[in-house]
């Protein structure tokens, strides 16, 4: 016959009559019913463009190395932008990843104000070097480049996607580099959130 498990031994015996003795039941089998119910764990989520609640500013991820000149700005972004906080949280959670952000002129010939070089090392670690030109729109560009790093954490095959139509991935410089609509959108979103926070005087 069937082995029967119950939350309460009495109910189990009444229902089937062959339950294990109560002594065989783990302690939580005799817990009150309320313990089995989660209250206040369901939330109603509606997309909200209003100001985020005041939150403690999280620390800069330990695997993110910044030149000192960018440090205060990144802390400010962490305080102002939920999207940027999530980007940094993902970076912080990726223990095999190291990110450095430094000044850099355009590393390519296209004159881009920012770029990221991502290296997958034989030992499984990932090194991402972000270069951002001075005087550039730092908020947008840092978030933009961080999103490129997250794309790689997501396992996105940029070369394959660039070969298909309308994927939002574009190969540049003969397929050596890529631009994505996703990174552009993330950069703009963070910049917008930072601007809103500054208007509120929150950051």
């Amino acid at each position: 016959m069937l082995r029967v498990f119950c939350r309460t031994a009495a109910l189990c015996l009444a229902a089937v009559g062959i339950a294990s003795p109560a002594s065989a039941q783990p302690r939580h089998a005799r817990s009150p019913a309320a313990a089995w119910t989660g209250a206040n764990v369901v939330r109603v989520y509606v997309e909200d463009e209003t100001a985020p609640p005041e939150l403690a500013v999280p620390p800069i991820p330990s695997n993110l190395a910044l030149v000192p000149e960018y440090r205060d700005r990144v802390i400010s972004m962490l305080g102002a932008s939920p999207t940027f906080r999530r980007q940094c949280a993902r970076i912080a959670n990726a223990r095999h990843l190291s990110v450095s952000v430094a000044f850099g002129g355009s590393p390519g010939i296209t004159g881009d104000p920012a770029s990221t070089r991502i290296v997958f090392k034989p030992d499984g670690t990932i090194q991402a070097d972000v270069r951002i030109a001075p005087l550039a729109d730092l908020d947008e560009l840092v978030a933009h480049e961080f999103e490129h790093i997250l794309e790689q954490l997501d396992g996105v095959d940029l070369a394959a996607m660039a070969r298909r139509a309308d994927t939002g991935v574009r190969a540049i410089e003969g397929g050596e580099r890529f631009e994505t609509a996703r990174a552009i959108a993330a950069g703009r979103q963070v910049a917008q959130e930072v601007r809103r926070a500054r208007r509120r005087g929150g950051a």
Partner: protein
Amino acid sequence: MRAGAAAHEKDVRAVAALALLILAIGGGPGPPDEPPVFLTVRQANPRALPVDAPSASVSADGRYVAFVSYARLAAADTDIGSDIYVLDRATGNVSLETFAGEQRVSLRPRDGTSPHISGDGRFLVYETTEMDEDRIPLSAVAVRDRRKGTTELVRVRGQTPNGGCATPVISADGRIVVFSSSATNLVDGPDLNGSAEDVYALEMRTGTIRRVSVDGHGRQSALGASYAPAASDDGRYVAFVSTAALESPAPAKSLTRPQPNVYLRDTSLGVTTRISVGSGGAAPDGNSYQPSISGDGRYVAFTSEATNLASHDSNRASDVFLHDVRTRTTTLISRTRSGDSANGRSMHPAISGDGRGIAFQSDASDLTCGRGCVSANDDMNLVADVFLFDRESQTVRCISRGRAAWLEPSLGPAIDGGGAVVAFSSRHPVDARDVDDDFDLFVRVLPTLREPQGRASRRAAERE
């Protein structure tokens, strides 16, 4: 006068607030870009790679959502493993449903995956782990009666299966539990394919079990395995994947390599039909899997890597197809508005009980617009999203998004009987505080497909 003016102003503000609230939750026609409303619950799925198997099941009436969660949502949940919870949308409560009972047979204090819930939410089946007599962990199928508060592990004639049992589903009426198993002692007689998996149907009332993955003569194939079942509302029809050749009549020549195909077994008539066929009866040139069946068994949605099941399939990626058993036609549904195959892979279809709505996940970015897409509709996150195909209007829309597209992946949809409630997992944050890099449950109530937008929205909001 002053007091009266203040009261009037207060009334006006109250009416305005009410009007805004009604608009916000979807009552009335509303603007087309009103934000969708989701219920969310923490799943805290810690996997670094996206989960790609459905981790939720919606009851036919749409009230209950069974789901896997690693988060401790109830006080009785004291372990770190995955548990099965059920969300009751009517009360807003979730209840812990996994319970391993005797320590002797459980590998961990509790664990549960692959939940599937009956039509009225009374019965729940899920996959768990137990130790066999040699202390070897085996997957097992648990059947829970939520009304009685009992949980049973599937046994046959008092015997423990001598192989793992997995991916259970329960018919909407709660009578039949269908699952795959590598056990060889579930039915009488020799198991011709040995420890390769077969699909079995267990009649809960009588305890009768029979092998479903057989050909039209009721014969088991000595070669191949069968798995991933789906059942119609009354359990009469069972769709499953098999690498065995089960069609009737048998194919003229044997397959050179085992290729997964989707089959449908009519357990009343004893007929087995291959579902993964082109409309002209052509054999597929790629693997087919992940079947989902409508309540009456007429429609079977499935994933296939084949390129010859429908015209316009040129993307060299898996797609989602819908087979109409009555007309013997197969239709590509993960397609662009122009009818072409999408620019990314699609998978994990979940068909509503009435067969009209098919939810699925897709990496493609051109399902809802394609070339000339306006930027507001751009699906640019480069990862999977959840979409809903409406068989009547023949349109596809994205479910896992707000007014703007989400940047994070959304996976593993489940759908109710009427196509009004879709549940899925997403890494999209549930609020500004959510910075965890994990997947949570999102439940979206849609205007029912058969009703005008305004009335249906209001009803959906009321259900919330």
